[in-house]
């Protein structure tokens, strides 16, 4: 399960130098009129996509950058293709 992450400053490095920072969830919700539901959704809820997802990483043992990448969660490989399964608004209409 080798993992390499490409840092925008340091380049391609061993995955253990980094800390996973969560799924990309869009901008932090505005404080004004913020409901517990919206806040909980932003803080806790994940899509747990088995496929390509956009996600955040922190180069903790390197330059200290925070940056998003696309990664396939079923192979652990970074993706050049900027099309994530969790960014299509898929299923947002349901339920």
């Amino acid at each position, binding site marked *: *399960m*080798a*993992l390499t992450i490409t840092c925008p400053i340091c380049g391609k490095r061993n*995955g*253990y130098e980094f*800390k*996973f920072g*969560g799924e990309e969830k869009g901008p932090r919700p505005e404080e004004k009129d913020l409901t*517990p*539901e919206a806040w*909980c*959704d932003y803080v*806790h*809820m*994940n*899509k*747990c*996509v*088995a496929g390509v997802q956009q*996600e955040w990483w922190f180069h903790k043992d390197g330059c200290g950058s925070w940056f998003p990448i696309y990664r396939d*969660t*079923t*192979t*652990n490989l970074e993706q050049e293709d900027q099309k994530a399964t969790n960014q299509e608004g898929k*299923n*947002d*209409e*349901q*339920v």
Partner: protein
Amino acid sequence: MFLKKKPMWGKKTKLKSSYDVVIIGGGLHSLATAYFLAKEHGITDIAIIEKNYIGFGGAGRNTAIVRANQRTQYNVPLYKEALDLWPVLTKDLDYNLMFNNCGNLNLMHSEAAMKAARMTIATAQFHGVESHLIDAKEAKELVPALNISEDITFPIHGAMFHPPGGVVRHDAVVWGLARGAAQKGVEIHQQTEALGIGTKNGKVTSVTTSQGVINTKQVLISAGGYSAALIYDMLGIKLPISVLTIQAMVTQPLKPVLDHVVSSGAYHCYANQTLKGEIATGAHMDPWPNYTTLNTAHYIKHQAEALSEFLPCLRGVRFMRIWGGLADMTPDMAPIMEGNNHVEGFFMDCGWGYFGFKSCSAVGKYMAEYMATDNCPDMLKPFALSRYQEHKLMGETAALVNYSPDN
């Protein structure tokens, strides 16, 4: 293996076009729920839908440890009942589950850890679960192989000793529950993938599978590490779950050397000796979500270093097999169980992290009651998904080892 051979649990049947209950996932929580639905509630028209084979996921990949020394007053009674059910199930299923209550020893490596252990022990004792705090010397008397010297990375200060815990043969539980459920009329369909859940006016109407559409009014998703992805994909419900890979391994067989389950939060390692003599060990998780179930060299090295420090007699022993499984971690290290909330007739049982095995017997019993009566049993009420929104996260993270990408 799926062609001509008759499965050990009973006859193969053709998938019907409708069932009273459809359960997605052929793991222990599904099998136990189906078994108790049939046994306790007379609901036998059940189909278990499994993409691979029963016990493919966490049910066959865990390290078989059972215990009831969790942290909070909500979790301890549930795990206590699960522990108490092993001898009962062995008898009822007429299947030797090989329950060996050899006792658990959680090592503490600092005074802060000893203090945390005191609180966990007080909770256990309050709920009638046997658990004691012992010092390093007493731990050494119980497990002579332990290294209690002070010149290791994390010297042992003491331990939480939990005598009723131990090991259950996980495959036997899968086979025993499958046979027990099938004898009561439950159908198990392997190599059948669930593809979607049909709803109408907020009610469950059908489940689409790779073998055709099934009409049903009740569906349970209890598919272990795959639950969160399935629930989002089929119903668009997001969950506070991160799916991580947990790794485990066994050494070559040795003469009897370890007659307790020994675990250490500081070393991120647990070990017990199987009846075959192998040291089964694990606990490391790479903290980024993935569905690979692959091992890492990083982890093999870590495990060897940890074991050879606190069990130095294992130096030079070889690992024979390594494997990985999925753990669906929640931010508060406690599971999510609820039903009839988002969609009428839809139930979920997930977020167990790496506690799915030790809980399956009791959870099957209570999820069956929940599905049969449509009333949430008191035992399961604290585990509703709404607790995250209400900011009532459980205190299980105060238990000894905590893995999550959130911290």
